[in-house]
């Protein structure tokens, strides 16, 4: 992501004091602990002009859930401010910077998995496809269950591993049906879930993050 943004002529800062968005604690109901972690994010990005992240779920956490997490608490205004200036990577490229063609190239038949947070919390559907359309040599096919949850869900996969795996199996079956040799997504946890299942089954199909694909030239 850094490579791409710099190539487009932007100055990228990486505040080293950032740790984690706090989503695991938030999703498990421990909002006090989540806020303690989120405070470091509010601090780290206080002076940023714009915040861009590669993960749909972390992006959703900052953009959609921080205002809810801090509602009625001291740092609510800061949380809202951070929310407003946070963007998911593909959305930033297409909607803010207005770019589509990054000069990338990859010869493969691929299908795109819509990570749920990106899709439903951030409304990202068109943007990754717009960017992938310009990747030379890439044939993009849609799977039947593109928008169906892969089943990872963070702590969900720890608490309910069998349900999570069953959902993953449905997703993988849909991917295989497309005949693609590559699955791309904008959420690495989804890719971990999907690749794990493919590896166990001995399937040759690869997975790559959207940013990885776009950085290839």
């Amino acid at each position: 992501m850094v490579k791409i943004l710099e190539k487009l002529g932007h100055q990228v800062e990486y505040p080293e004091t950032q740790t984690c968005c706090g989503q695991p604690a938030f999703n498990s109901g421990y909002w006090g602990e989540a806020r303690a972690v989120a405070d470091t994010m509010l601090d780290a990005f206080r002076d940023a002009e714009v915040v861009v992240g590669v993960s749909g779920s972390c992006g959703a956490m900052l953009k959609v859930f921080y205002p809810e997490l801090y509602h009625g608490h001291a740092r609510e205004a800061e949380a809202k401010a951070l929310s407003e200036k946070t963007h998911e990577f593909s959305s930033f490229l297409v909607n803010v910077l207005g770019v589509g063609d990054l000069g990338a190239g990859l010869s493969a038949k691929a299908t795109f998995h819509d990570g749920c947070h990106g899709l439903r919390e951030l409304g990202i559907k068109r943007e990754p496809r717009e960017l992938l359309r310009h990747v030379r040599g890439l044939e993009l096919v849609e799977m039947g269950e593109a928008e169906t949850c892969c089943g990872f869900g963070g702590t969900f996969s720890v608490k309910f591993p069998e349900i999570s795996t069953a959902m993953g199996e449905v997703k993988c079956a849909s991917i295989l049906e497309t005949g693609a040799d590559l699955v791309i997504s904008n959420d690495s946890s989804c890719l971990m879930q999907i690749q794990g299942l493919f590896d166990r089954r001995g399937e040759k199909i690869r997975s790559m993050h959207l940013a990885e694909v776009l950085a290839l030239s």
Partner: protein
Amino acid sequence: MSTESVQFHHDAERLTRDVRHRGLIQKALGGYYVKRDEQKSRYTDWQMARASAAAAKYEAVNHLDTYLLELTEKLEARGTKVFWAADGAEAADYIASVARNAGVRRIIKSKTMTGEEIHLGQALEKCGYEVVESDLGEFIVQLREEPPYHIVFPSMHLTRGEISDTFQKKLGSAPAETPEELTMIARDVMRQKYCEADMGISGANFAVAETGHLSITENEGNARLSTTLPRLLVSIVGIEKVIPKLDDLAVLLPMLATAGAGQNMTCYNTLLGGPRAAEETDGPEEFHVVLLDNRRTTLLADPEQRDALHCIRCGACLNVCPIFKNIGGHSYGTTYQGPIGSVITPHLRGLQSWKHLSFSSSLCGACSEACPVKIDLHHHLLQNRRNAIANKPVWWEKPIFAGFAWFMSRPALYRFAAPLLRVGGPVLHAIRGRFFDPARLWTATRDLPPPPRESFKEFWRKRNASR
């Protein structure tokens, strides 16, 4: 873990491994998605229609006292008896006393999830009445002594072979091979029951305050027959079903049909406002409407989740939920399944006993997207989790998250996370999958990405140093 939670884990685990069940449900719902999308595309603006429907329900729920009083007044003006029941026991007692006073022996029921919620059928059977479910799907699960599998499609999980077996065993009918044959068997049984029943029991999808009518939506015609032929009619309605105006039905009825079954309009949409009027020659002589609270006022008192009372029981959220589709309706162990069930059951039946339903979700949000009245379903699951933990943190989780918070709020320490993982990695790898690996179930199908040779922080620092 509560007993309900233990049962849930057990059932869910079993069903997720049942590939036959998974295939059955996928096939059952396949046609629904296609038809639903077809219908949605006919609207000039589906999203606006949703907002419009949500606005009507918001108005109703947030002025519930006003509209319930108006509804009651209009119903009573036509000779309807209206009974306000605080809970299921009060409702069942009232209905039993109505039956007793009228010398009822046989009762025919059309589909009512509210009735199911308070186990009305069983309560009346205990009093000695014959209670027959007239809705085909409900009739089938009643014969099998199973609860309904889905709030709209109670027998979605059964094959024709299983249903034929049930009919043979319980009705003494001949074996049947097609859905048509099976339906006709049920039709024949039911026609006599409609004519013989002394009392009909129904639910309602909506209750129109402006005109004092219950609105009942169905495809089979069993509700029309159950509410017309017996001499007594009792309808049980959750208080949240009230809507302000008759014209609200102009958008709610089509959306219920589209979201619920992918139809343009359901076959029969009937308004019932009173017993047989002077100028009528048929219809029930007595009409009783039971308005049920049963802890809906508890949900009402939670302004954050009050919109869960907008629910029109269309079942759309069940149909799109990947958890529902993999664990099946029975695993929920309660009347309302799927996302709406996971949201409201902790309120209606106890937070600590039922919180597991709110936790067993990946929060994908498909439910909120599908809901025709814009209930913020998946966010309510998060809120239920927060409330459950605030009320009673899980004893072994609390220290883990406290530790997580402690570590993650110290960036100086976090720097060492990557090197630590590199050291600990081989150890984790050695115990992975073995008996004493606590993450064994998780790693059965997932691999943590190998810790990079160089973490991003390390890469960044090096890069800046060299510039």
